[in-house]
């Protein structure tokens, strides 16, 4: 008797679970459909529709297409302060390496895809725009000693794009203004006044991002997210995760001296090393065969040896 009771309870529990799984369908119904099928009353449905209108828009509501245009302008602002380093083979190598890492990320697909470009400056710096343009300075690349080290820098920048840190730096009020603009939603092409108004919001949004990238820096939490994303990407692609620690240690040595760029906008490298040490899988990727290691080292030296 007792055991049958257990069976009955198990059956009931299973039915409850099955019932719960079905609830997802209700959540997917439009307010009107939900009302007509009797799941909610008409007034409840109207209230659902009203609250949908009242939802504040956030960076997540930007489409990849809008992120693309924001990112292009952020890139143009960066190239206004820094010259690109037009060493063809070095940039080709950076693009091959970067693309390999992007494919191993959670967000391999962007509206216009990823591109990588070296900046001609001694300053130790790297930037990622929301459109997938990743800049790394010659000064930054000089801190590296291997392909695995360069991979760590690029993977960190891809991590910022994965987490949309760039567009999240835009103040919410600007997005609210943008999303209520008729230039965002009108059927007819926007007139000069609407375009002018939206361009002001666009200008302010670009400033929010470039101020963060160039002056104030992301929060320690955001840097940690990008570092953890980098570790995941490196492990998936087959690179040595400890490349990130090596690069941070090299930065830490320069950190003491202070200076512009990466060092002024990023948390103390030693703090970042402490933040990620527990997340590093022991021995990951470091066991790449000697032949593979030498291929990586040869192509790194051939293209970035004299950076």
């Amino acid at each position, binding site marked *: *008797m007792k055991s*049958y009771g257990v*069976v*009955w309870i198990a*059956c009931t529990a299973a*039915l409850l679970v*099955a019932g719960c*799984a079905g609830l997802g*369908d209700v959540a*997917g119904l439009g307010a009107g459909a939900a009302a007509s099928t009797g799941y909610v009353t008409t007034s409840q449905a109207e209230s659902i529709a009203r609250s*949908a*209108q009242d*939802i504040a828009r956030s960076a997540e*509501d*930007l*489409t*990849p*297409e*809008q992120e693309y*245009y924001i990112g*292009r302008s952020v*890139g*143009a*602002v960066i*190239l*206004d302060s820094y010259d*690109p380093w037009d060493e063809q083979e070095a*940039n080709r190598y950076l*693009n*091959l390496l970067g*693309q*390999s890492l992007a*494919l*191993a990320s*959670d967000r*391999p*697909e*962007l*509206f*216009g895809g990823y*591109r990588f470009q070296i900046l001609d400056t001694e300053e130790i710096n790297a930037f990622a725009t929301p459109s997938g*343009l990743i800049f790394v300075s010659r000064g930054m690349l000089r801190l590296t000693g291997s392909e695995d080290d360069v991979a760590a820098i690029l993977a960190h920048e891809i991590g910022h794009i994965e987490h949309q840190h760039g567009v999240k730096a835009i103040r919410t009020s600007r997005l609210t203004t943008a*999303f209520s*603009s008729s*230039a*965002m*939603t*009108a*059927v007819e092409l*926007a007139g000069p006044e609407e*375009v002018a108004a*939206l*361009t002001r919001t*666009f*200008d302010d949004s670009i400033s929010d991002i470039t101020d963060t990238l160039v002056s104030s820096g992301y929060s320690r939490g955001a840097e940690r997210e990008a570092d953890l994303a980098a570790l995941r990407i490196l492990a*998936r692609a*087959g690179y040595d995760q400890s490349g990130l620690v090596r690069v941070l240690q090299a930065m830490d040595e320069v950190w003491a001296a202070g200076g512009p760029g990466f060092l002024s906008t990023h948390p103390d490298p030693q703090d970042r090393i402490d933040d990620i040490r527990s997340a590093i899988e022991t021995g990951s990727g470091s066991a790449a*065969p000697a032949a593979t290691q030498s*291929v*990586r080292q040869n192509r790194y030296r051939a293209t970035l040896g004299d950076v």
Partner: protein
Amino acid sequence: MERMFRFCINTLAVFVAVVLLGIPALRAGAQEARSVSVRETQLRESPGFLGRVITTLAYGDRGDSMQEQNGWTQARFGDSEGWVHTSALTTKRIVLDASDRDVQEAASSREVALAGRGFNRQVEAQYAAETGLDFQEIDRIEGYALDPEELLAFLQAGGLSLSEGGR
């Protein structure tokens, strides 16, 4: 005791019936509309960037997703069925040529996005004119195209993995 047993068997029978009838319903329910949210992507035979390309999909193309696996979505676009990376898709309906009704819907819900609106080429041109910023270098850098064969050779020679990638 026997009554209790029968009750349990009946409950079990009802449960089995619910599960059996429920499975096709759940499968049908799992088919959800998706739109391509990037300029261009590929529908592939298998879930992975090495999968053979069945067809190229364009921004705003709409299909039905069947299942998701390690960051890849199995979906049907027109007559073609295959796999596309989930990061190239959105649950929003992307409207390329909006009507008044689409606009109203886009303004009141998060389910609809209008292509080419808001921050677009027109706004960028106005911004460039006002700031005097040069976009030629950006265009040049974006124009750089990697040869897929070269990328594959780079991956293989460097002992890099694509099998786990893009999850």
